[in-house]
């Protein structure tokens, strides 16, 4: 679906069936056509290892559940700012 194009921003959970969020992130970053996509992780996984692993894999943002709309807006804005700059 991602390869088909038309997607410009990825917001993903970590704990998912078939392919977890980290695997998805790694797949996106290793794909030459998709590696530029911003990927935001929104997950209940709150271990420091998780956050470090996501950061190392190239996540654009990391939000722990439960989260507020304000947090989401702030993090999205931060990513957009980075992309613009």
């Amino acid at each position, binding site marked *: 679906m991602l390869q088909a194009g038309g997607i410009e921003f990825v917001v993903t959970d*970590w*704990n998912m069936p078939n392919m*977890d969020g*980290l695997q998805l992130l790694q797949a996106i970053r290793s794909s030459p056509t998709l590696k530029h996509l911003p990927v935001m992780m929104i997950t*209940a*996984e*709150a*271990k*420091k*290892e*998780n*956050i*470090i*692993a996501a*950061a190392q894999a190239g996540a654009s943002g*990391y*939000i*722990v*559940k439960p*989260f507020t709309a304000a*947090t989401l807006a702030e993090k999205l804005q931060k990513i957009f700012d980075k992309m613009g700059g």
Partner: protein
Amino acid sequence: MTDSNGSGDSRELEALFDSIASGAAPTDAAAAKASLLQQLREVEGEEDDSDDLQALFEAVVAAQAPAAGEPTADDDQASGGNDKVFRRVGQMARQLHDTLGELGYHELLGSAAAAIPDTRERLNYVATLTEKAACRVLNATDIANPLQEQLEASSAALAAKWDALYANQMSVDAFKQLAEETRAFLKQGLPQKTEATRAQLLEIMMAQDFQDLTGQVIKKTIAVAQELEAQLVGVLIETMPGERRTESVMSLLNGPVINAEGRSDVVATQQQVDDLLGSLGF
């Protein structure tokens, strides 16, 4: 695996395969099987110990394994022998590992198990002493209680008579009798009963001497229990499959953190996530 034209290593392996393959010839294997069966019967007849039986059983299995498959083409023969060698080496490594493990754990568990009868004795000792102490205390209170009741009743009776005197309802003779009764109570009845009660209080106090002894014994027993626990946990950790051991620690799929209090490996707020990412340069 089947590359036989490579380095010297593979030529050596090839030679090994050949020796295995020749050992796998049906006639040889059948003969070996027959002689092993003969041995098996002898061993059964002697009712030898289980170690020999176990070794013999493995030898029989090993002799049968190469005879089971009979490859036709040369390549098949080489790869079949190759697999068998690896399987056999794998089995041997596994056996060695198991045996070493059992030896180590037997020693460990043996020392732990040896401490248990001693601990049982100690706990029996504690039970005996505390039971004795409880009996002594109950007996003492059984003796002291009626004494107190008698004192109470005697005092109440005398008090009633004195009340009658103050109400001017008493004759002179009756007053003389009351004075005599009161004097006797104060001189004999009261000191006698308080003395007896004090003796029982002393008995109750002395019955607490068990605490000194049982306290020491229980401390030792707790030490044994802790040692035992540590050893059993050690065995558990060492025998647990490697994957499961690391799973709980290393997994990145733990779900929500139920209680972040007192844990340093998790974050509790988005702010902490941001700080962590910030410290990593994001």
